[in-house]
């Protein structure tokens, strides 16, 4: 139920960020396979109505008294409920593209050494999936569901840590500008917040808590989930902030 609203708020923020706001529609006059921005714009265009449909088909389950009023809406609801799998598949695929495109968009900035790495896309995707899993855990009332998602989340965190290590290793094996980009996180300005808030409190610690919960210890779900969400947010802030500092020419 939250997803369509989150998408719309996010889209509105993107819109506010534009310099020529009234020309945003021009994104939709062209399809360019080589432009991550075009991919993102089109995927958002497709996934937003789909997610609205999806959420709307559950409204009557949540509020049994809800009335759609028009017969065409009732028919639509019936069709959606009957064809949920048909909608879920494209939504899943589009969701992956949506999750990965922000990272790829940043990595397309070839003047920013910290962003200019192909691992950023998958890293952002996994971090997005992990924070998504955390929000499901936060909202889910079903203990079994929470356990499964928690297990998936541990795996996602491990993958994310692997990607982060890889990212830094890749930089260190690169040219001088890339090494200095990595050094922002390895002794430089962003080292303490990155390792304290993202790596330890945002990934390792919640993973330990989730693992302990699976082992049978009582852990309030709020703590690991909130830590993952905050860590994911700080991670994005740091990456965007640090990326703008790195450059080729000094």
């Amino acid at each position, binding site marked *: 139920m939250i997803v369509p609203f989150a998408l719309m708020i996010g889209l509105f923020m993107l819109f506010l960020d534009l310099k020529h706001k009234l020309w945003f529609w021009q994104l939709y006059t062209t399809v360019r396979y080589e432009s991550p921005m075009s991919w993102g714009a089109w995927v958002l265009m497709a996934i937003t109505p789909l997610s609205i449909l999806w959420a709307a088909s559950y409204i009557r389950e949540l509020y049994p008294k809800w009335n759609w009023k028009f017969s065409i809406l009732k028919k639509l609801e019936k069709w959606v409920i009957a064809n949920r799998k048909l909608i879920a598949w494209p939504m899943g695929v589009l969701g992956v593209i949506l999750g990965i495109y922000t990272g790829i968009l940043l990595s397309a900035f070839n003047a920013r050494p910290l962003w200019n790495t192909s691992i950023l896309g998958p890293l952002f995707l996994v971090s997005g999936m992990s924070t998504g899993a955390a929000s499901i855990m936060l909202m889910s009332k079903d203990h079994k569901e929470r356990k499964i998602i928690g297990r998936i989340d541990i795996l996602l965190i491990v993958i994310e840590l692997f990607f982060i290590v890889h990212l830094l290793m890749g930089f260190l094996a690169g040219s001088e500008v890339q090494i200095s980009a990595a050094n922002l996180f390895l002794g430089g300005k962003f080292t303490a917040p990155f390792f304290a808030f993202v790596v330890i*409190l945002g990934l390792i610690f919640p993973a330990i808590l989730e693992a302990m919960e699976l082992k049978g210890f*009582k852990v309030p779900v709020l703590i690991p989930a909130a830590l993952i969400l905050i860590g994911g947010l700080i991670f994005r802030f740091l990456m965007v902030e640090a990326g703008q500092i790195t450059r080729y020419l000094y």
Partner: protein
Amino acid sequence: MKKIKKDGSTYLNPYLGGFMLGVVLLLTFYISGRGLGASGAVKNTVAAAVNTVAPQHVENNAYYCQFAGGDKKPLSNWLVYEVLGVLAGAFLSGILFNRLKLKVEHSPKITSRRRLLFALAGGLLFGFGTQMARGCTSGAALSGMAVLSFGGYITMIAIFGTAFVAAWVFRKNWI
């Protein structure tokens, strides 16, 4: 080694706990090159908060000026991160020893409100005292004594000596 209480919660042997605290202190010196501390983190957080809300006040205040204002970054301090780690570690220990509950621990003879008020008053006094003495139990006494600083011993004696007397005065709150 473990002491099991009625509600299933357990406590670590205090001697083992003390030994582990010593090991932590040793590791802290080894890893960070500085001692432990707690009040410093609170102090820097307060200074950072004041600097955000009223930077003018910080500049006019000789005390705040030591930590915040200008190019100083009060939150970029080892103690702030250390205290975050202490919170995380305490949380972990609460889970491990089955003591993770929201509750106010107090004597059955007094109310939670009274306990909280006294704790707040004590905390305020202690915070004030630490700033006069340039450190708290961990920052001045523990870390100070570990490097054989004379001030550390005096702080330890003063804190625990005063606590002994104050505990007798306020004993009705507990027994």
